[in-house]
């Protein structure tokens, strides 16, 4: 009983830490008013999603998914043992996800710069106020 509980905690604690990070990131995106801080929150958020995948891929006693030099010849005749290597698929996915995340951040930077050029502020509340004040903005009756 105790062992299974311990196993369960050992098998899940990484997820829970990840979720805390996720919530911190989401908090930054939702509640911070400064656009740069929002982006910091976004970065944290994206990193935590990546951690989630990587954590799920790992195995007890598994090694990095690269076949050791010494086993290379054997690999021709005998297929590698799956239990011995960490699942490479999530790693591949996350390589893509990192790049996608950085691309998003890049676009966000471009947006922030053009916002700053136009409004000279990065505070969301101030921005919304200024947006509504713009002269051609008589939108509602």
């Amino acid at each position: 009983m105790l062992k299974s509980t311990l196993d369960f905690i050992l098998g899940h604690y990484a997820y829970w830490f990840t979720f805390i990070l996720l919530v911190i990131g989401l908090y930054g995106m939702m509640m911070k008013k400064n656009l740069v801080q929002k982006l910091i929150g976004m970065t944290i958020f994206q990193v935590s999603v990546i951690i989630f995948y990587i954590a799920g891929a790992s195995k007890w006693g598994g090694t990095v998914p690269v076949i050791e030099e010494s086993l290379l010849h054997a690999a021709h005749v005998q297929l590698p043992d799956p239990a011995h290597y960490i699942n490479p698929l999530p790693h591949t996915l996350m390589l893509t996800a990192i790049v996608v995340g950085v691309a998003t951040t890049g676009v966000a930077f471009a947006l922030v710069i053009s916002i700053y050029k136009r409004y000279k502020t990065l505070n969301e509340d101030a921005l919304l106020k200024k947006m509504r004040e713009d002269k051609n903005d008589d939108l509602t009756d």
Partner: protein
Amino acid sequence: MMTLLIDNSPVLIPLIFLATALLIPVVAAKRKTLAWPLAFWATIAVVAVSIFNVRRVICDGPVHYRLGNWAPPIGIEYVLDHLSAFVILVINSVALLVLLHAKKVVARELPHKRVPYYAAVILMLCGFNGIVITGDLFNLYVFLEISALSLYGLIAAGEKQSPVAAFRYLIMGTIAASFYLLGVGFLYMETGSLNMADVKAILPTVIDQPAILVALVLMVLGMGIKMALFPMHGWLPDAYTYAPTTSSAIIAPTGTKVGAYVMLRVMFFVFGVNFVSKTLPLTQIISWLSAIAIIYGSVLAIAQKEMKRMLAYSSVAQIGYIGLGIGLANPMALIGALFHVLNHAFMKACLFLVAGNFRYKLGHSNVSRLTDAVRKKMPWTMAAFTVAALSMVGLPPLSGFFSKLFLILGAYENSAWYFIVIIFISSLLNAVYFFRILEKVYMRPRIPVPGQEEETDVKRDEVSASMLLPTLILAAGLIIFGILNAFIVKGIINFMIPAGM
């Protein structure tokens, strides 16, 4: 050569777009005028392929295309079934018409940015098509980001306020995409697969796990944001209002539909009808949210003066119709939702093009400043507007009527009379905000405005053919789809009903 093209027709669409997007900056760097023809002809090619694909699916049934020749769970698979072929054709044909209209608009609005602008449009379409055609959950995420990034750019190229709107959309969009990715993560850890069909096959063995539920909720939330389902629509009105004319005209009909498509695909084709509507009350929640969206969007649309903003809120309402059809989860309602995907794409594109024509000739698209001079100036534009408006109100034999009829039948099937009431109220609200414009334009001003002398002889000053033609084709489409709805429904939409519904 021909057989090669035919065999690879599913993958051809994203690849043509990608190649074009790469070509545009290279070829058009020196001669900016080349950007539009490249984009336009690529879209024509894609529409041709889409038509061929629809034909292929109708004749031969669904096509599973293996990329790199790896069998599905190992490699990535593209699936061309009735649903994806249909949605792709809708997206691309609307995009083609809007692009035809765009030539003059973009040349005037964004003369120095034409090259990156058209490349971004093409990339966005590439992303949309990829989302629809892929059969792999992670591949979908990548396409989602391609389309999202280009969307941010297309919106932010607009008026002074547009980058702020785009930034807010970016934050929401990233949350949405990350939710989706997180959901895929949960699903992957439970099933060990990323292929939609494979996941569907494995799911019954683990369906009672909370992780599956959470995966579903996360994915639906993410797509709810992307399709601007109430109350996650906050990004939409500003984005559509401040974006350049062509951007809103091309995003409004296509973008949210893709979100709706993914939601539908994930819910009914991955998790299964039984799970989402019987085991969980998820579809009920979606239908109620959609019902609120329908009323909320229609009411706010009435309060708007600026036509683009009015159309944006009306989009929120119309997405509600699609959501309602998904949420009712029975064949009739789903047919209604899918038929409305087609209708709404054409209606919204037409209306946004009309707004563009107004801006082009009048310099504004402010509803309160329209007079009967507009009709004399632009009779054909107004005719298109009238058709689209009547279709939005839902008058037969225009297509908007039939999607509503299907939805009503679907609501009866679930004995959900309250949704019928909601559809009615929204039809009347639609009538209010469209007839308000029609009245203004087709009648003399009731009280002469002081200082603004009566324009007694207004000359006809219609927009040029390249702008008028797509507007009229879209309007004609509404009449044709209305009259031929039975053929469309029986020919293709009927085959999209998922198993178990």
